[in-house]
């Protein structure tokens, strides 16, 4: 099992945000974390990356990574597309992608990956020498995903990739994510408020409510249960 989380508590100062959260993600799987605003979804991802004070157990590839520094966790193959995208606004599109590959040594592989990425995101190729801050929301999201993929990660964490994007763009993005998962086998943990879209892509879902996991089931099961959808997911 690639990622195992057990009994995860998370704290912001004195406030506890997560209570004994537990879940799994294995190689190549796409799983989603759903829940309302403020449920703690972003906190889960930040905990995985060592950005929040935590208690409990986080294991990646068998190694216990609780308490590790972010950059060390990243080097194990965990790529995080954060809330707000975290783009290097003053740098060009190309520089942003190169930064994604900062921990890699293989020049040729990096160049090949960049070209392949441009194949998946043609709009980025048009803007490769443009300052990233001038890109539209959708393009910045694609850039953020692209940058994360440059790491050749084993696990891709996505925090609300649909946020602030027009529906057409979101569909395009999720189609690309599906394709990438099929082509490269990278596992994904997607935090989403747009539950419908996430349940289409993912095979398994967790539902978070005020810091606790209240549901842990295959996506199809949750998607089919109308009462759950209505009360928790809003559709």
């Amino acid at each position, binding site marked *: 099992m690639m990622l195992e989380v057990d009994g995860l508590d998370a704290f912001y100062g004195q406030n506890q945000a997560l209570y004994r959260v537990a879940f799994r993600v294995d190689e190549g799987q796409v799983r989603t974390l759903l829940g309302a605003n403020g449920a703690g979804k972003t906190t889960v991802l930040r905990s995985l990356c060592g950005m929040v004070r935590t208690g409990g157990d986080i294991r990646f590839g068998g190694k216990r990574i609780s308490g590790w520094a972010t950059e060390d966790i990243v080097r194990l193959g965990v790529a995080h597309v954060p809330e707000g995208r975290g783009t290097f606004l*003053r740098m060009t599109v190309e520089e942003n992608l190169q*930064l994604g590959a900062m921990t890699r040594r293989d020049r040729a592989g990096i160049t090949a990956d960049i070209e392949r990425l441009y194949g998946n995101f043609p709009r980025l190729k048009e803007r490769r020498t443009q300052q990233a801050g001038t890109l539209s929301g959708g393009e910045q999201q694609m850039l953020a995903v692209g940058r994360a993929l440059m790491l050749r990660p084993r696990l891709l964490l996505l925090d609300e990739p649909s946020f602030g994007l027009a529906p057409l763009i979101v569909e395009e993005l999720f189609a690309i994510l599906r394709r990438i998962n099929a082509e490269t086998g990278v596992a994904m943990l997607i935090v989403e408020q747009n539950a419908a879209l996430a349940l289409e892509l993912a095979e398994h879902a967790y539902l978070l409510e005020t810091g606790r996991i209240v549901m842990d089931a295959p996506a199809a099961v949750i998607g089919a249960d109308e009462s759950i959808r209505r009360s928790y997911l809003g559709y």
Partner: protein
Amino acid sequence: MELLLQQVMAGLATGAIYACMALSVVMIYQAIDHLNFAQGEMAMFSTFIAWQAMAWGLPYWLAFIISVVLSFIGGVLIERVLFRPIHNAPVLSNLVAFIALFSILNSSAGYIWDFTIKEFPTPFGTKPLFGRGLIDAHEAGMIGVTLVLLGLLYVFFRGTRLGLAMRAAAANPESARLVGIRVGWMTALGWGMAAAIGAVAGMLIAPVVFLEPNMMLGVLLYGFAGAVLGGLASPGGAVAGGFAVGIIENLAGTFIPYVGRELKLTIALILIVAVLMIRPSGIFGRRVVSRV
């Protein structure tokens, strides 16, 4: 007309000093996103180290290298010991830390080496070039070294992975960590490089302004002004800004009545502020476009 040309050339010569300093300032600004107000004092201290090495009998080039290396190490240590623990403190608290560093370096230098003016040698000699006393060998050397440094820095930041990593670490530390960059080391490296460049600047400047603990005060101010004028994002802008400040200062002193030595700095600053009013991010500064 001849006077104008002379003053412009003289301005370029003094401007080389400011350009050197401005380069050092922008360099560290790119690395740590703060202005280092103690930059001048660090440069002064480095120059004293070189002077001491020569006083102990070492040749110039060896003293130069020792000073640069020790300055690099010193810069890294200052970052790790002094600024890393308070990097979460408010900006103004960090500013006070810079003031403290300034005070410590200035006072210690005065205590160790006293305040009498000392001579500092130049590797370029002082022969006037182009015959007519417009510019001498050392001044040409200063301009040359500044431009070479500039070139090296440009290549480093734009063309190497380490340079890119350093820029990223300064611009957005959290995102930098998310791509695996060890931000703490990058910041320390930036400080080390800035200290080393400062040492070079100090050793170029000392032959002209003479070595004493307060030698860098005016230079640092003009260096800041030059860096800000050039737009803090750009080393090339900083160097151009430094030269511009030198020229402005000289022309103001020559052509505006009532301006004695003291008022020159004021006039220069006022002119610079006037430029900033027209172009608020400096002449070469890029306006950062950010979506709300």
